[in-house]
């Protein structure tokens, strides 16, 4: 039996809880997503654990459905950016020469444009759909993943074992998948947790600005937006998404830390 440290256990439990809520939202949510069930901004009670929102919908229900969209978009975008960023970076390093030059300079160019402005411009001309959001966020983040993966891979590429594989006559596939990638994985996994959280924040920001998720769908950013006026009257409804994001961020990174520790061991994760 593998020994999991307490911090990782907490992280795993909380993360799993959030993901489970997201997946089974229609089953666990006490009310319907758009159902008006009470007064405006009712305080917490037995019927409404988190109270109600600005038009009297159950806040817990909104949060659960919000988690569904937020987590789905963030996961999909992270997956896209990591797959694309890592493959491009490894290709650039192994092929070298003009491929590397062209890719790297192009990425530099994209990175000079502030992400949020770029996203705002694109979203204001494109129809707002979840797919477009995912692709846009994924592509924008690909640049960052590319930079990290390339930096890591460049170091590995000059190792004698990679040279030994070249001298053996190995093809690019083997060199990338068997020699470089396994050694580049640790820092990438650590980055994965961090980038996932940035994605959550990013999609929330866009929704808060009214460019991400549109009604009747909702996400955490949209919930903040709907309830922000309440803050003036001392109504804490807008803080619920903030707490959710913070909790998710911490727990995901606790898991990432643990995975990083395990993958950093050069004894195949085996404790001597």
């Amino acid at each position, binding site marked *: 039996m593998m020994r999991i440290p307490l911090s990782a256990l907490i992280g795993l439990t909380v993360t799993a809880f959030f993901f489970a809520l997201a997946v089974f939202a229609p089953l666990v949510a006490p009310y319907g997503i758009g159902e008006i069930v009470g007064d405006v901004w009712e305080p917490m009670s037995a019927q409404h654990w988190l109270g109600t929102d600005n038009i009297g919908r159950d806040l817990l229900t909104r949060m659960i459905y919000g988690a569904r969209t937020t987590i789905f978009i963030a996961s999909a975008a992270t997956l896209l950016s990591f797959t694309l960023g890592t493959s491009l970076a490894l290709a650039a390093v192994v092929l070298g020469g003009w491929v590397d030059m062209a890719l790297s300079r192009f990425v530099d160019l994209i990175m000079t444009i502030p992400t949020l402005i770029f996203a705002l411009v694109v979203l204001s001309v494109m129809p707002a759909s979840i797919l477009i959001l995912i692709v846009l966020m994924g592509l924008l983040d690909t640049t960052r993943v590319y930079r990290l993966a390339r930096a890591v891979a460049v170091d590995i590429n000059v*190792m*004698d*074992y990679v*040279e*030994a594989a*070249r*001298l*053996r*006559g*190995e093809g690019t596939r083997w060199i990338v998948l*068997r*020699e470089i990638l*396994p*050694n580049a994985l640790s820092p990438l996994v650590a980055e994965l947790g961090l980038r996932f959280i940035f994605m959550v924040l990013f999609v929330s920001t866009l929704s808060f600005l009214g460019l991400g998720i549109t009604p009747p769908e909702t996400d955490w950013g949209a919930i903040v937006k709907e309830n922000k006026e309440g803050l003036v009257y001392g109504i804490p409804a807008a803080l619920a998404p903030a707490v959710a994001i913070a909790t998710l961020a911490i727990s995901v990174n606790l898991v990432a830390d643990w995975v990083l*520790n*395990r993958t*950093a*061991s*050069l*004894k*195949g*994760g085996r*404790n*001597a």
Partner: protein
Amino acid sequence: MRDSVTHSLVDIRGLKIGATVFAPGEKPRDIEIVHGVDLTLEKGKVLGLIGESGAGKSTIGLSTLAYGRGGIKITGGEIFINGEDILKDSTSDLRNLRGRKVTYVSQSAAASFNPSKRLMDQIVESCLSHGLCSRKDAERRAIRLFEKLGLPEPETFGNRYPHQVSGGQLQRAMTAMALCPEPDLVIFDEPTTALDVTTQIDVLASIKEAIRETGVGAIYITHDLAVVAQVSDHIMVLQHGRMVEYGTTDQIINNPCEDYTRALVSIRSTIHDETPSRGQPVLKLENVSARYRGLNFDVVKNVSVEIHPSQTLAVVGESGSGKSTLARVMTGLLPARDGTITFNGDILPTALEDRSKEQLRELQMIYQMADVAMNPRQTIETIIGRPLEFYFGMKGAEKRARVVELLDEIELGEGFLKRYPAELSGGQKQRVCIARALAAKPRLIICDEVTSALDPLVADGILKLLLNLQEIEQVSYLFITHDIATVRAIADMIAVMYQGNVVRYGAKSKVLSPPFDDYTDLLLSSVPDMRLGWLEDVISTRKMDSAGN
């Protein structure tokens, strides 16, 4: 003044040193690295500490400054410097001790100097910070030391920056730094290990001279018994944090009592009999020249050599002589600019990409740093098994059986199959690299400094293994090294390289016997002999200055 007359300079009793190990994915645990060592040193004497890596020599050396590198703690025993127990000293007493009464010369001077400050500023720094004398006096002292240490233009030498002087000069500048505050004790921690043999000799001679003239006490740490024999009065042999033997230099060299010491003394005595050249050469280089992109001169110039079946050609030279580049040219990593390479009678394409799988298989390579020559994420089975799978299409049980066979040949055995490189010692790693090369059933293996990173006894084992395997597998070696003792042990043919040229080439017996050209003479004479007085003899009879000056 205290009654310092009755005290030894250094008196260490029952010294125990421990450290905490933080392995990734494991709980930190405490280990003991020095297990109760006693040591005394009188004023003006030099004590040599010798042993393999991990013997605790540097740790003991640094403990005389009441200092331990990251995570190291002195856990027991007493250390008296001039009769004062420094382990009981307060921080301010220690500040007074370090850099004033006891100073330290490290292995890598290049990494120890601040690259953005002039040498003089760094050399007088400790005099000034301890308030020993005025800046003017300190500089005068430094210049006197530059003279003693044989540095060029002593008056202005200190105005240079660290990158403007050679490695050997920098090491001497560091010695000047250590001697400048006129300490009672200097710790020399492998001061010549990173230098070429021909440079080492100058540094060694100047350190010895400076010690004699200033009358300072010194602890000289090294893994090379022949080097320490030249400078020290007494020698202490250490192994795994314990003292093995202690005696006068004469006694240790000429009359060692312990088996371990005897092994160290006889280390350079293996000599392999020459195999004559027969048959068609395996590899033949004709007028090969090569340069790196962006350079306007050749790094390898017009080289012609041959390697015959079951023979070893040793390529010898100092760093920068082009010997590793020559290996890169042969492997095709750096395509030759000019000349032809013939392999098994066929012309070998110059670039790696143009060579056939068969040609790649027959020419294998073993690297200097076995640590980075193996993928840390692959098991030994994968590492050795891959060439079998790649070249011969072996799979499953057949492949595993062959891997086990190879593991037996390198004297490791089946238990290593599932291990990762991080779980192996330096010598074991190099053995696995040898097995990986052999797995391809090559005709020629290029060995690039394969023993340089290893402890002498381990290196000796690797050389013997290579010789054995040569007999079994009938393979030829191209052996690149800077170490003449290694060449004597393994070579049949020798090519001496100097600044990209082969200056001397032929059978071992011919190359190593007079008459010598000047460079070969310098190179051969610079290899420390395991006898007293060797240093003086060489310095007085040399024909050519070392390349480092």
